[in-house]
């Protein structure tokens, strides 16, 4: 292999490094106008009047639309793409999410009106001139408060603010019996706090209606352009799908927040037709804080039972999941199927029951954010493990090793069937933890810690061993679980007459480096140069279809679709080669870019075969000309990356500040195509997970006002908050996809958070502190030490 497994430098870098990236807000179309969305300053209020007359009279104002206009036009709201039913079989509550609200706003930042003008500045000035009268109503931001009797109601048709309730695992009574028989039970009550994704590129959308062809184009900051097209055409605006083109050009980070179809996307498309001009909307950062789908926000009680030897005998979990004011595209799936199913962790826990209630509140909608459900599952398991070790006076690493599922490769040994509906593909969990322990120098650390404590310095070590379900996902399985979409991927391989190759993938790169990694695979499979391959993504007009990039699925699912098409090319190529070489197909072998008659020096190159396919003068009878194949790949199973993370911290006794001294991550993401890119994914994920542990968290006040909705107030990790990461990997190939890959995008964010929190708790153990809410700010830590 020339490229696979090598740290090939990225082909996309040159344009980004020279300022030639093309992000949505960089695009300027002739005659373009600019939109400013007027947003609700209240979390819950009745709109009693809107006066647009002063704004309409301003020079440069093109149009103003309100909720009444949207309602009068019969435009639907944005739909939800996943259905989770109540335990009694009732359908979940799915209140409408209008593009512009006409009556009652339901969260701070809810869309009230759209002002369109000749420039950004005029649009903003005019928005200031629109007078809106509100009658403020009581609001609730916290899920635990929202389910109480008498709590303010978000939607009249969702009594008690309940969206659904849901249960998975062994019957409750079986788990209760296991817990009753346990020698020791560790119990934690905590909030997995709400995070704001904060991709550095704010969301942006350009709608462009062209009356000549009755054609709509949407440029948008999306991880998922084809799904956005489907939802806009079939559900929101009722435009024939073939008249809608959605382009997601260079996208400046997503982390989940750009998976979803947002109201602003449909608004600019709809309004562009009304004014017959292109419209650009770009969020300011404060709008990103208020309207990008948030992540996490679980209120959880979790209990783990152990026998006298420290074997886990049962796990019982109750979670209230805050869904926000409306259902974002995949919101119901995150706290249920992406959370409950991961509660087996890496352990042989024989009895597990998880109960989740989805709750509406007067807050920004919550959906998938890096890891999506899996970080929440991992957090509760790994916090329980370290807390139990402390309570039972056992070593936290030993406790894990004792309870790990034994190694299995998914080929010789079967996959592992969990108590919570999954079949793990392959794993060797002991190996990652043992490697991480070796890297950290565990025995030496404990000595250093003891000495430091004697000198009044508080060091702590924290562990986290995680598994995640990636490569989303087998369509029939997710369909049975409530998905309203298939989750296959599409890969088209077009060999050009000169032997150059264009690949069209439904995956979307917004930092992951697909243009490099996918090209490495294609170049190697065809034995051609990397430079002879181009990867095209993000445009519904060139890429036939796709389900986008999230859930660490791009290579495992999208790469597999490309492999299917590569195989079709090679199969056809062999027929052409056999004809040209006057040999039987079975006598040929393909290697290093040519077909050779085995045992001879007779051969024909990939480029010559491609040319023959397009100039089929001397050609196999009955064979179609051309060399262009498209494939859909629907995975057989999820993939299951896993790993072990260890954090070492020092807590300052006087200030409560936490210094992250070392971070060790050993991850197993299956086979690796580009180690440099995979390492980068791990680094970034780890940093975001550390952000949750130490710095980040949305804060709503009692009126459901987001009070830290700016970079001045919401803290994310900066360079000097973090150490250099120490990372390594093991390789346990995925047995069910052709590349043996599992996915690396979310691993870091899933493993790192509990490792850091466990480390702080270990440091604080002399103070008798067992549990603190994230983020572990100096104030919180200092108070706990007093």
């Amino acid at each position: 292999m020339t490229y696979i497994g090598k740290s090939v430098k990225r082909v996309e870098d040159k344009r980004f490094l020279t300022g030639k990236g093309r992000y949505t807000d960089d695009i300027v179309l002739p005659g373009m106008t600019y939109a400013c969305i007027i947003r609700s300053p209240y979390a819950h209020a009745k709109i009693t009047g809107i006066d647009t007359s002063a704004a309409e009279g301003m020079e440069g104002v093109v149009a103003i639309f309100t909720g009444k206009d949207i309602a009068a036009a019969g435009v639907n709201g944005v739909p939800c793409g996943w259905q989770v039913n109540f335990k009694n079989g009732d359908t979940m509550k799915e209140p409408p999410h209008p593009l512009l609200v006409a009556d009652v706003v339901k969260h701070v930042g809810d869309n009230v009106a759209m002002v369109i003008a000749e420039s950004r500045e005029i649009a903003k000035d005019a928005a200031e001139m629109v007078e809106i009268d509100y009658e403020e109503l009581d609001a609730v931001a916290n899920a635990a408060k929202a389910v109480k009797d008498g709590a303010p109601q978000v939607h009249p048709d969702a009594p008690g603010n309940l969206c659904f309730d849901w249960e998975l695992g062994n019957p409750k009574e079986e788990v209760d019996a296991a817990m009753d028989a346990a020698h020791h039970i560790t119990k934690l009550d905590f909030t997995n706090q709400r995070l704001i994704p904060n991709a550095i590129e704010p969301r942006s959308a350009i709608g462009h209606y062209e009356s000549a062809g009755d054609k709509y184009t949407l440029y948008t900051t999306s991880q998922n352009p084809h799904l956005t097209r489907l939802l806009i055409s079939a559900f929101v605006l009722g435009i024939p799908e073939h008249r809608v083109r959605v382009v997601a050009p260079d996208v400046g980070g997503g982390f989940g927040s750009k998976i979803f179809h947002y109201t602003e996307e449909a608004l600019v498309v709809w309004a562009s037709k009304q004014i017959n001009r292109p419209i650009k909307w770009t969020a300011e950062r404060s709008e990103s804080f208020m309207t990008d789908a948030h992540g996490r926000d679980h209120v959880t009680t979790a209990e783990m039972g152990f026998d006298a030897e420290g074997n886990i005998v049962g796990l019982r979990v109750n979670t209230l999941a805050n869904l926000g004011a409306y259902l974002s595209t995949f919101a119901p799936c995150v706290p249920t199927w992406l959370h409950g199913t991961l509660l087996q962790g890496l352990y042989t826990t024989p009895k597990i029951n998880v109960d989740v209630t989805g709750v509406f509140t007067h807050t920004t909608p919550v959906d998938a954010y890096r890891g999506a459900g899996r970080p929440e599952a991992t957090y509760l398991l790994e916090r329980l493990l370290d807390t139990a070790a402390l309570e039972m006076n056992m070593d936290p690493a030993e406790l894990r090793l004792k309870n790990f599922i034994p190694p299995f490769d998914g080929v010789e040994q079967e996959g592992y069937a969990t108590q919570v509906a999954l079949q793990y593909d392959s794993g060797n969990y002991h190996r990652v933890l043992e490697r991480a322990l070796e890297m950290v120098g565990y025995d030496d650390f404990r000595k250093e810690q003891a000495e430091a404590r004697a000198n009044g310095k508080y060091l702590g070590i924290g562990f986290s061993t995680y598994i995640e379900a990636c490569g989303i996902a087998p369509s029939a399985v997710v369909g049975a679980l409530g998905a309203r979409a298939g989750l296959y991927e599409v890969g088209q391989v077009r060999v050009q007459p000169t032997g150059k190759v264009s690949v069209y993938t439904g995956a979307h790169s917004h930092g992951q480096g697909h243009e490099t990694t996918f090209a490495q695979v294609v170049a190697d499979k065809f034995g051609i140069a990397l430079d002879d391959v181009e990867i095209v993504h993000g445009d519904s007009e060139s890429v036939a279809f796709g389900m986008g990039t999230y859930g660490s699925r791009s290579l495992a699912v999208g790469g597999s679709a490309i492999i299917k098409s590569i195989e079709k090319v090679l199969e056809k190529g062999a027929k052409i080669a056999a004809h040209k070489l006057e040999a039987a197909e079975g006598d040929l072998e393909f290697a290093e870019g040519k077909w050779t008659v085995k045992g001879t020096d007779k051969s024909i190159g990939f480029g010559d075969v491609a040319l023959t396919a397009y100039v089929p003068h001397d050609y196999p009878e009955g064979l179609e000309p051309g060399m262009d194949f498209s494939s859909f790949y629907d995975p057989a199973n999820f993939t299951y990356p896993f790993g072990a993370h260890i954090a070492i911290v020092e807590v300052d006794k006087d200030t409560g500040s936490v210094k992250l001294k070392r971070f060790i991550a050993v991850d197993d993401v299956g086979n690796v195509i580009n180690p440099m890119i995979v390492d980068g994914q791990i680094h970034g994920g780890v940093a975001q997970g550390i952000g949750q542990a130490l710095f980040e968290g949305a804060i709503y006040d009692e009126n459901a006002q987001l009070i830290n909705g700016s970079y001045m107030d919401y803290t994310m990790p900066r360079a000097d908050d973090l150490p250099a990461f120490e990372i390594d990997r093991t390789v346990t190939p995925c047995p069910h996809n052709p590349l043996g890959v599992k996915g690396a995008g979310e691993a870091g964010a899933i493993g790192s958070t509990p490792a850091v929190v466990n480390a702080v708790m270990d440091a604080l153990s002399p103070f008798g502190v067992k549990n603190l809410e994230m983020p572990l700010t100096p104030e919180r830590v200092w108070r706990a030490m007093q």
Partner: protein
Amino acid sequence: MNVKINLTINGKSYSDEVDSRTMLALYLRDELGLTGTHIGCDTSSCGTCTILVDGKAVKSCTMLAAQADGSNVTTIEGIAQNGNLHPIQEGFKEKHGLQCGFCTPGMVMLAADLLDRNPNPNEQEIRHALEGNYCRCTGYHNIVESIQYAAEKMNG
């Protein structure tokens, strides 16, 4: 109110009339089409709009275009010389110091200022210098290595 400005950007002279409230970042992006300078926050917090004004790193989202009158401005589009990547750009490519690329122009321009002031920074000095620039993709690990690579290369 419009004001007249004369300035040099990436070696080229510009003479323009701008609305007095126009921020330098928007002037570069909307008026001149130099879209390599990005805007991530409007509050000087994220640093993605960082450019060099008279050789010093400046967050152009909170500097008025009018304030740049008479200045010599360098943006990401102007840092490469004769079609060759600047050693800092090269460092980011070699050490995988960028993923989505959105914060990258600001990081590169900030690094140019840092290495001008301190040609041989250690890891802590680099991390400290990066404090005003957010990256959400890389965890900064490879950005630090990219700048170290550039420093070594520039020190020859």
